[in-house]
């Protein structure tokens, strides 16, 4: 389960480290921000007494009371709209959408409102809200608890969309999101909540929004991925290295919008090959934008077609396990594609 990651310079500088899973790291980041800043608060469905359906906010209501950790009515547009209104009156709300699949009722408040407050008022009003949403396939989740919906939001200037994969990044990026003066959509892959563990700094730190991370250096191809797929890609990359001496450079965007072009282009210009892997429905996914950007701006460096892997273009994962497993890009498929592209 633990997988190899290059420890970044920043993290080696950090003192106390504790092993945490993604869920714990995010929960902790939230609690720390709430302790440090009275205006930070949480609102959403079942976030209070129950501590959230994934128990990420457990203990917060006890510590901060029912106003700063508010169980809202079942109304996503209200949740995001209220967060906007709180933010213009001095608060730093972190709104939770129980599942990313249930963002659509709040779509208007996110893309028409939060994203445009600053621009439309010529900078008079800004909207410092964070919207957390668990996404991604989980067994038993079926059509409406499995979707990867990030592409809906990656054509909307004014928004920031982040999707960190690993615990330390997630904690540090949540802090950045909360402190950011702009609205930030914060996606968490629910299947990795307890699956992915790593050492997380205990002291206060922030991981900047807008910077990709090179998890593994390599010369043969660049793979850009995030979420559960990144976890798989890193394992496959290790295997390819051991079995075929193929060295994949693996880049995690961490921020999906606006994306860190520089890091991705820099990588592709070295390797000459690009593969994007995500769990979203392939057509129109975030990988499309990244692939198009690469094919436009690193064209002369490309030694092969830009490639993408994603879920097939069917509505979503099914309730039946065999169908779900078929839906998600498999390690085998990723391996075959990486191998093929490296050898192109």
């Amino acid at each position, binding site marked *: 389960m633990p997988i190899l990651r290059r420890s970044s310079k920043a993290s080696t500088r950090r003192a106390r480290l504790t092993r945490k899973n993604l869920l714990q790291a995010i929960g902790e980041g939230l609690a720390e921000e709430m302790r440090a800043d009275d205006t930070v608060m949480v609102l959403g*469905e079942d976030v209070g007494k129950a501590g959230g359906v994934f128990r990420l906010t457990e203990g917060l209501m006890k510590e901060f009371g029912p106003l700063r950790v508010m169980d809202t009515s*079942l109304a996503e547009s*209200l949740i995001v709209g209220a967060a906007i209104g709180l933010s213009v009156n001095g608060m730093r709300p972190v709104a939770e959408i129980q599942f990313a699949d249930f963002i659509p009722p709040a779509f208007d408040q996110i893309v028409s409102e939060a994203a445009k407050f600053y621009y439309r008022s010529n900078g008079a009003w800004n909207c410092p809200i964070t919207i957390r949403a668990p996404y991604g396939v989980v067994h038993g989740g*079926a059509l409406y608890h499995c979707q990867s919906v990030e592409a809906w939001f990656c054509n909307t200037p004014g928004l920031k969309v982040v999707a960190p994969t690993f615990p330390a990044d997630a904690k540090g990026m949540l802090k950045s999101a909360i402190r950011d003066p702009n609205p930030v959509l914060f996606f968490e892959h629910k299947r990795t909540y307890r699956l992915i563990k790593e050492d997380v700094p205990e002291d206060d730190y922030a991981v900047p929004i807008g910077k990709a991370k090179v998890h593994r250096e390599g010369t043969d191809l660049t793979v850009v991925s995030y979420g559960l797929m990144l976890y798989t890609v890193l394992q496959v990359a290790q295997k390819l290295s051991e079995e075929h001496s193929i060295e994949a450079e693996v880049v995690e965007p961490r921020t999906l919008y606006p994306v860190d072009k520089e890091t991705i282009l820099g990588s592709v210009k070295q390797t000459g090959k690009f593969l994007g892997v995500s769990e979203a429905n392939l057509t129109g996914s975030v990988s499309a934008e990244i692939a198009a950007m690469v094919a436009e701006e690193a064209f002369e460096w490309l030694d092969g077609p830009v490639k993408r892997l994603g879920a097939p273009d*069917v509505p979503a994962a*099914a*309730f*039946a396990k065999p169908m779900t*497993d*078929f839906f998600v890009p498999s390690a085998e498929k990723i391996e075959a594609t990486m191998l093929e592209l490296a050898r192109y």
Partner: protein
Amino acid sequence: MDVTGERPKHKALGLEDGDLLRIYRYMLLARRMDERMWILNRQGKAAFVISGQGQEAAQVGTVYHMRPGKDYVYPYYRDYAVALALGQTARDQFLSLLAKKEDPNSAGRQMPGHFSSRELNIVTASAPVGVQYPQAAGTALAFKIRGEDGVVLVCGGEASTSQGDWHEAMNFAGIHGLPMIFLIENNDYAISTPKTMQVAGSIAGRAAGYSFPGIEVDGNDVLAVYEAAKGAFERARQSEGPTLIEAKTYRLTAHSSDDDDRRYREQEEIEQWRLKDPVIRFERYLEEVELLDPEKKEEMAAQIQAEVAKASKYAEEAPFADPEEVLQGVYAQG
């Protein structure tokens, strides 16, 4: 649910003895099937259970007025007794619970409790809470446009009224006097959120603001629900417009098999509500009017137990769809 006056309540409502036994049968079947789902979950056979326990009276009391295949229903995920009373079987639900290919609701695509039947006019149910209301209004509008006397029943929990979609549909139904019934099964909780944090004022009380009747009814009393729904269906069929029924009831189980309700409610509260169990209350009524004696009760229980066991076994042995079938049926042809 007292037997008062000269004749028993059900006679006054125009229900024959046979009706009562059918109603009882649906309620009991729903309950026993539901209990079996939890056993399959504990056995590791069912990945996820969502339950209708406690809401059988609200469901059967209402749906018993429907003409399956003519009227339309938009059920929500606890409406097992709705589906059964309309003509789906226990086997259908187990097939769905276990995500088998033969599952008539979705062929293993959707979670259990997401009912669908073209023949029975059960419109494919969804997971996002509240979306069914505008759709139901549209379906009712089609009846009005064509001058037909069809009725649309749309169901949801009390938290579904917090969504904008509920209000938009209430308003539209009021404006156009649509032949539809909003059945709100108010079971006190939305996962962990109690109704005091969910609903300001009264749900039934809101109907007046949309110019149509709202009825609050004891949702654990199947005859009281039947009575409220009777008027509502009559109104709808006579083009007199929509009715809102708020059936006050209680969710006897945890929200789902993924939920631990000890985090947010007291065991004692549940015990209090168990005393008002709609199935047991109706049994008592049937005993009072001498439609049920220990023998008959035993016989029905055994029958239902057998039916449930058989249905469950069938579903357990039924095959999954091929994994590749996940790719099929994205667009309708023709």
